[in-house]
């Protein structure tokens, strides 16, 4: 960890951004972003009845999106800050501008998820004005805003080529990138009133999935950007990233298995646990999308016996995308399945009410999907503009050999 180690000069260059493909991408993501804003405006004007939420399930797709975006943000920064700054691996230094930039985009997306989800955005400033130290969400708001600031300073120092200051802020950013998803996991983990929420594992799980989904998101992003701008992306760098993602994905799978076994060990949880993990409503989401698509298939691709597959940037990008889908499913399962099961107000008794005692299912409404897709599109829209306006990407990368 020596910031003074001599590093060869890296040539960063803006992309030209003149091709039809580039403008088509900008226009499509721009239109989707505009549709997302329209969807939010509709909900804000006419009421939250346009969403699929209700008084039993007050959180849904957008809160899952918030937690997913936090992971994407922290993960994008984690790996490059560890590899390039902390471990001082020079091959990863060329990514030290793009990593914090992507981290800023996703953390901003997380804030927009919150903004679009809340019912009374006119009062949004109250989240900053009235800090509640006992609210883990309040701490999250503080951490999100400070994380943006740290990432912004980090990227500016990288532009200015300030080595020591860049190293110090890089370490700080790294610490923040661990704390943010950890505390994000506590948003659900601290809720002791709900059996499927209350777990100390959520924080750790969110950190692990942040690292993996961050890499999963940035591999296809780099692959496609380098490919379409005719820059060289060294395959062994991507392969190393993919291997880290694969190990992380296995850790995520292990943590999820621990959680499942802990929940199902307690007889009081059998009903809710069976519903959340094995009922037709959740089986596909949990076992197919989360475990199979998000964890098992990416691991098979990364360590495939077929050499062309495990060294192909296209296949590794596909593994990244599948893992990101799986981690989004994980956040969705955590947030929604824990709410669909009724709370045991009269433990052990046979209880009926007009509203609160049956399992209620939630499906995001088209308006919620539009908001979700709009926010994700906005990330890629700003990314496309950002790499055209700022010199964020290296002209080429060097492999290990």
């Amino acid at each position: 960890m020596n910031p003074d180690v001599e590093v060869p000069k890296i040539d960063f260059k803006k992309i030209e951004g003149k091709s039809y493909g580039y403008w088509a991408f900008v226009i499509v993501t721009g239109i989707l972003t505009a549709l997302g804003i329209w969807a939010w405006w509709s909900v804000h004007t006419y009421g939250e009845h346009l969403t699929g939420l209700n008084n039993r399930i007050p959180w849904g797709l957008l809160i899952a999106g918030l937690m997913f975006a936090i992971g994407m943000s922290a993960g994008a920064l984690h790996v490059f800050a560890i590899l390039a700054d902390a471990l001082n691996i020079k091959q990863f230094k060329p990514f030290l501008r793009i990593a914090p930039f992507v981290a800023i985009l996703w953390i901003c997306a997380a804030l927009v998820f919150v903004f679009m989800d809340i019912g009374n955005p006119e009062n949004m400033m109250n989240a900053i004005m009235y800090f509640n130290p006992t609210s883990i969400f309040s701490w999250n708001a503080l951490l999100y805003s400070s994380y943006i600031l740290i990432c912004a300073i980090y990227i500016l120092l990288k532009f200015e080529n300030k080595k020591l200051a860049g190293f110090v802020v890089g370490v700080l950013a790294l610490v923040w990138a661990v704390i943010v998803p950890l505390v994000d996991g506590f948003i659900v983990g601290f809720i002791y009133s709900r059996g499927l929420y209350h777990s100390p594992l959520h924080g750790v799980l969110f950190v692990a999935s942040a690292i993996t989904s961050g890499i999963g998101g940035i591999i296809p992003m780099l692959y496609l950007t380098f490919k379409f701008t005719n820059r060289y992306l060294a395959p062994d760098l991507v392969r190393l990233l993919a291997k880290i993602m694969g190990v992380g994905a296995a850790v995520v799978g292990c943590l999820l298995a621990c959680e499942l076994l802990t929940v199902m060990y307690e007889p009081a949880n059998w009903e809710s646990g069976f519903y959340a993990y094995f009922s037709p409503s959740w089986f596909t989401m949990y076992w197919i999308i989360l475990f199979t698509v998000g964890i098992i298939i990416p691991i098979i691709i990364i360590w495939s016996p077929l050499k062309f597959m495990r060294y192909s940037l296209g296949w590794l990008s596909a593994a990244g995308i599948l893992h990101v889908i799986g981690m989004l499913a994980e956040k969705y399962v955590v947030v929604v399945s824990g709410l669909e099961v009724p709370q045991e107000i009269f433990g052990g008794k046979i209880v009926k009410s007009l509203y609160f005692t049956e399992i209620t299912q939630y499906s995001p409404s088209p308006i919620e999907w539009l908001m979700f897709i709009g926010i994700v599109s906005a990330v890629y829209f700003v990314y496309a503009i950002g790499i055209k306006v700022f010199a964020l990407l290296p002209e080429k990368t060097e492999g290990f050999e």
Partner: protein
Amino acid sequence: MISRRKFLLLTMAGVTAIATGKAVEFKEGRNSELSKYKWGMVIDVEKCTECIKSRGGLIARPPCVEACSKANNIPKSDRYFYDLIAIYEVRETEDAEPLYFPVICQECENPLCVQVCLTKASYKREDGIIVIDLHRCIGCRYCMIGCPYNARRFLFEDPRELLTVVNPEAPIRKHGVVMKCEFCLWKIDKERAMGKEPKPVCVEACPYNALIFGNLNDPNSEVSKIVRTSKVITLRANLGTNPKVKYKL
């Protein structure tokens, strides 16, 4: 000459410093008059059961629910359940006779809703009533996630369009905020100031006198006597929330 990057850096640092400084400023009002009271309620389950059974069970809307909704500007909607009093039918076995429990905000001593509220919009007054400051609520619904008793409602629709009668004394809300039972704060504060014994609307409306409201700090109040002398339970006592709404069995 300061560079654009440095200017941006300094501006962001300044904004964050101001925001953080503002955030850690604590200004909570104190009212020693209120601290004399600790409002609580005892619900006589047998009497409630008798009332609700006589009206046909769960499908009925007992007078307490009707009166509460009317007085507190609670909208009636086909799509959402907004009533602040939810009735639960509870049995030991399938063939056992049911008991009916009206569940309102339990006005916990250790309220999770207040603990989790992002903006301190939910807070506990000195008399123990948990209140939502509608001007502070951002509608994040974290309090609803936390509440162990499903006692909070989010207004998915504009209530002003669903109300047939409006009580100007009670809060009139808009969509996008959370509401809950506040022991008819607007009424009991007025009655207390007038030297009367305050009573929430549901207590007055109950034809069976099943709801007893009073000051738990006063050992001579009816609620205190019942708590001392009868078998009362609180819901989800294992959570440590210590509700001030108790059920007499």
